[in-house]
């Protein structure tokens, strides 16, 4: 039993290191292509863009969100803003009404039906060649849109461009941890962009060519992760998604563990279920790196975390058991007078060194992500918070998502 467990542990560790090395080598290959622009830029042509803002009970944040769109460095006559109230029960509708006098803002009201229905209502009215969505809890940097559009100008084969999502200033260590995590996902998404394998077109201001929806159809419910499903659908149909690392969208992150747990549960549940829905595209070389690298590596991470968590619980259990034995045998005391500071007792198993390398690669990816967004090097304590909080609580939302999936998929067996 022990040897099977250690083989599994080695295999999972190997695959996890493989994924990190893959990112690192992708980075080294493409590092010269990563540009972080500081000031305003100009496009040769400014195509018309529509931004849909779906809102559901967002009266507190909607004003700032819309304001940030109005302040975008983009010609006013080229930018249309759709505000869609998805049956809010608070003062969102009134807050939206205040913007109705702006000539480039259109407002809609509908019965509550979920975010994807609000987006689809907006989609029906879009007349521009480019469109995007901005979650009502996010704020767009004034240069974000023009930088995103510069990618389309440069490469006509690009069908969607995702921005860098940056967590707002953190008020506590939970938000601090997420800040580091968002930095890391900027890095990861940029690398996935280079190998044409991005798996999510996030709600905060991913801009699409309208052709995507004309060809592939509107948003779907997709287990409450419509932004992931659309990316899967695009990858399945060979539509290129890029990531623009210097287009910043500031988003508010959960302030408490409970809220973070709920958000992540939804994300992971969405990932698992979208992957099951699209299982036929895994390990098919015609779907490219997305099918050979992105999806498998996420699946591996789910297995690795579940396995490590199980092992940790087992180890903790046997540790407590030995303490109980010790108590029964002769009470608590320091069993030996051996000096455990003795270097002899430092773990020197090869797995120990591998884990150090793995952590080093993870910290490096956070640092590189920070450099890509902020344009400067630096180490922040947020990295430590991230490693601590996510490795302790992460397994719980992950296992719960797996559990929910098993429960909800029960009827499908019959």
């Amino acid at each position, binding site marked *: 039993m022990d040897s099977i467990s250690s083989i599994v542990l080695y295999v999972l560790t*190997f695959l996890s*290191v*493989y994924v990190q*090395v*893959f990112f690192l*080598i*992708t980075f080294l*290959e493409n590092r010269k292509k990563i540009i972080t622009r500081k000031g305003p830029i100009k496009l040769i042509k400014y195509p018309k863009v529509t931004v849909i803002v779906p809102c559901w009970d967002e009266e507190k944040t909607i004003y700032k969100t819309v304001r940030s769109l109005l302040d975008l460095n983009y010609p006013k006559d080229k930018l249309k803003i759709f505000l869609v109230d998805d049956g809010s029960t608070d003062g969102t509708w009134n807050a939206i009404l205040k913007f109705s006098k702006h000539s480039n803002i259109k407002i809609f009201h509908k019965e509550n039906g979920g975010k994807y229905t609000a987006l689809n209502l907006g989609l029906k009215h879009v007349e521009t060649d480019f469109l995007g969505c901005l979650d009502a809890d996010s704020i767009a940097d004034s240069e974000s849109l023009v930088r995103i559009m510069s990618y389309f100008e440069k490469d006509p*084969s690009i069908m969607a461009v995702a921005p860098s999502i940056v967590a707002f200033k953190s008020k506590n260590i939970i938000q601090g941890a997420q800040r580091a995590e968002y930095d890391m996902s900027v890095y990861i998404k940029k690398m996935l962009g280079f*190998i*044409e394998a991005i798996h999510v077109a996030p709600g905060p201001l991913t801009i699409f060519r309208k052709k995507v929806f004309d060809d592939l159809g509107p948003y779907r419910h997709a287990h409450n992760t419509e932004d992931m499903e659309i990316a899967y659908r695009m*990858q399945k149909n*060979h539509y*290129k998604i890029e990531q623009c690392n210097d287009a910043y969208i500031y988003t508010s992150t959960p302030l408490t563990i409970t809220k973070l747990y709920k958000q992540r549960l939804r994300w992971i549940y969405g990932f698992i279920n979208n992957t099951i829905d699209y299982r036929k595209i895994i390990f098919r*070389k*015609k*779907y*490219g*790196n*997305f099918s*050979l690298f992105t999806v498998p590596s996420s699946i591996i991470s789910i297995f690795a975390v579940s396995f490590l968590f199980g092992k940790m619980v087992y180890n903790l259990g046997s540790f407590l058991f*030995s303490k109980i*034995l*010790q108590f*029964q*045998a*002769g*009470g608590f*005391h*320091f*069993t*030996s*007078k*051996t000096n455990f500071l003795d270097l*002899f*007792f430092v*773990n*020197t*198993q*090869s*797995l*120990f*060194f*591998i884990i150090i*390398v793995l952590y080093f690669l993870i910290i490096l990816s956070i640092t590189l992500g920070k450099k890509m967004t902020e344009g400067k090097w630096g180490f922040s304590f947020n990295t430590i918070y991230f490693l601590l909080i996510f490795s302790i609580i992460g397994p719980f939302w992950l296992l719960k998502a797996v559990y929910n999936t098993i429960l909800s998929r029960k009827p499908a067996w019959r």
Partner: protein
Amino acid sequence: MNENNIDWKKYLIVFLFTVGLFLSASYVSNYFGNKKIDQLKLIQDKISIDILSSETQFSLLSELSCKNISDSVLSGELGELANKLEWGQQNLGMTDTVLYLKKYYSLLEIKDYLLTKNISKRCKTKAAFILYFYTTAENCSECEKQGLALSALRDKYPELRVYSFDYSIDLSAVKSMLQIYKIEDTKLPALVVDEDVLTGFRGIDELESRVKESFKLQETTPINTNSTKTIKK
């Protein structure tokens, strides 16, 4: 277009690079593992010299006085060695070298036991011994418990010497001891206290009263510890 974006060479390079990392880690791990084995060997050699020296001293002076016989310094070092060996067995694996070191350790224990017993008999010094037989061949939770109880007892009575032997070790000297005391593998853990064989788990209280009775040991209190130290000096 996507099919063309698969860079198989890169997948291979990443694979080789990762294998390289694992190999380097295993090399580094081996290097430190060997250092640890060397350290263990060094401690054993020192103990072996100490025993030899004490034995020689004992033979030289046996006809004279007991005053000059230095208290054999071994128990502390044997304890350290035992801890390190146990840790090594768990973390380095039961390699041939670890097994060899373990045999050597058992032999040193027996020598220390015989020597201390002889000194105590001739010079009428107080000494208490427990021989403890356990097994690692099968899962023996009683043995684990017994081991913990014994180390608790040893902490309480520093004069007590506990010699532990792995039943399954392939060493003729240990086998002879098993024969002498008629220890069977079905009745482990087994203890030999004052020539009595006790099988199965024995609680700390039972052992304490036995040990106290037969050897009239003193518990460690700050004052006693000091006095022991002065005697040793």
